């Protein structure tokens, strides 16, 4: 055969890039830089986010670079400190989702049978709640500490992550190399850890980034419902809510806009990097 007709999209969108590209690295740099700033917030040369000192509702480029909120607190400092909780609950949540969902998914896909049916039914039931409603249900009766919010976001991730892990496991469990180790008498645990896990982890990389974006947005939504981390804790979601009072929005919209932009750029970077990574690691494309 002569070279076959290429994929439709490839023909239209031009060459299929097999590199991650500069925009991917830019996204990664933004996320990395932000994480660094969040961790180092106490030592950064920024104002104290909780001090009520300055004039309230100061504009941009005043004494305070990004202005102050209704209580005179520095917006820049609050946005940097907010990253701690927003990125924090996001990453703890996704790690939880990955561990629980991934484990259940692999078990379900590897052993099949009754276990599979049971776990799949749990996934299906979890997915039968609109995710924010599920979050609300969990946080409703609990005190809303950092850990409960993170756990809630993690639970949201279990079913979608678990399903992907299950599908990938099923796909790989039938491959020769897994069958071969089964025939050679390898123990199930060993097969899962040595043969399946590495392969299942590949698509999880992209999912981690995408899921973290979803978690960060979910924290914001919870904040709007008054269900984010309680007390003085600063998060982007809470900062946006704080800045969304009618008076703030009409007179100095930047109080809400700064954390909105921070969140948008972060979610955009996560989505973009996740999407590129998914294309890059797509099993169909890498041609085994």
């Amino acid at each position, binding site marked *: *055969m*002569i*070279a076959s007709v*290429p994929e439709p999209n490839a*023909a*239209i969108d*031009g*060459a*299929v890039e097999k590199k991650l590209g500069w925009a991917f690295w830019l996204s990664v740099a933004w996320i990395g830089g932000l994480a660094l700033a969040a961790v180092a917030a106490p030592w950064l040369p920024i104002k104290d986010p909780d001090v009520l000192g300055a004039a309230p509702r100061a504009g941009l480029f005043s004494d305070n670079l990004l202005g102050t909120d209704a209580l005179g607190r520095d917006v820049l400092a609050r946005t940097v400190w907010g990253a701690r909780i927003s990125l924090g609950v996001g990453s703890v949540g996704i790690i939880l989702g990955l561990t629980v969902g991934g484990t259940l998914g692999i078990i379900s896909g590897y052993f099949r049978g009754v276990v599979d049916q049971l776990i799949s039914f749990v996934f299906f039931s979890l997915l039968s709640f609109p995710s924010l409603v599920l979050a609300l249900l969990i946080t409703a009766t609990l005190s809303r500490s950092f850990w409960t919010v993170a756990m809630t976001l993690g639970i949201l991730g279990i079913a979608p992550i678990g399903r992907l892990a299950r599908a990938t496991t099923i796909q790989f469990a039938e491959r020769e190399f897994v069958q071969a180790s089964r025939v050679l008498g390898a123990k199930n645990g060993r097969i899962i850890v040595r043969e399946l896990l590495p392969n299942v982890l590949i698509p999880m990389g992209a999912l981690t980034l995408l899921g973290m974006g979803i978690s960060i947005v979910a924290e914001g939504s919870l904040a709007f419902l008054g269900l984010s981390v309680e007390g003085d804790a600063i998060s982007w979601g809470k900062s946006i809510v704080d800045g969304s009072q009618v008076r703030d929005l009409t007179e100095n919209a930047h109080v809400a806009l700064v954390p909105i932009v921070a969140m948008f750029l972060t979610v955009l970077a996560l989505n973009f990097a996740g999407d590129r990574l998914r294309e890059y690691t797509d099993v169909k494309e890498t041609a085994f």
Partner: protein
Amino acid sequence: MSNAQLSVRDLEVRFPTSRGVVEAVNGVSFDLERGQMLGIVGESGSGKSVTAKTLMNLLPRTAEISGDIHFDGEDVRAIASGHRKHFWGVKMTMVFQDPMTSLNPVKRCGEQISETLRYHLGMSREAALKRSIDLLEQVGIPEPARRVKQYPHELSGGLRQRVVIAMALACEPELLIADEPTTAVDVTVQKRLLDLLDELRRDRGMSMILITHDLGVARGRCDEVAVMYAGRLVERAETEVLFSDARHPYTTALLRTIPRIDQPSHTRLVPIEGRPPELVNPPDQCSFAPRCRHAQADCLEGVPTLTNLDGNREFACRYPANTEAGRTSFFANEAAGQTVTGLTIAQPSEVN
């Protein structure tokens, strides 16, 4: 220029892709007289469909096209870029290989035929539907009034291709291009459909281009046959001439792949050795040389041009079959056991 209905000159089509530029059609020229039937034959990937789609303005816009196409003296490519209405479908139309996929699965058959009539001829919904039923009857579909209300998947492959034919003929086109119209249906249906097409064509005085990879299908139906290889026309002749006295070694190889009635059915057909060439950056040589039993050293230097012998045949080969030069080159290769390109000639076979 002749007064041919369709005249194609130096047609070239290239597709830029991630792997490089695919040179799908390379300098193809031919004429088609009104009411005649031209067969275009060639292996998979030789550029038959791309040629047809160029005529029909169906290529994706990434395709780079050059050359002249004239229909009734009008520049077809200018018609395409001018978005002229009522040209394709009315003057010239096409049916495709697979009847399973060439009907829209979510529209009733009748709707698919009558939309053409309504758009081009301005018929009313009722008139168009009545005409659709007539058309289905003409192509030999039983119970046409019921069929128009059915969806394509409710019909068998053979019936579907009849619907496609009825659809194509709805506006009485002057030229029909049929791209392997019968490869997807089984052999018994194949012959009936081809006979139907031939009959309808004669009744209407319509011209036709029949694309196929099976020379046997062209025999007895086409007035003329053009053989394509790797995007080039390598031989063109009147059908009888081609069958009895082919010149290009590729044509003779193709002829050997046709089952012959005078041979016992278990006689093995001779497949053509080797694989078709890459169309990305093809070397400057006869593209068939690597698979040709006649190949000589100078076949690898430059592409042979089409030579027109006596008006009714042309071919592009320096050591043509059924000529003295061809025989000499073949015997020389046979004696050496292989050709200049390394093709081994295993068992001595009949002389071409």
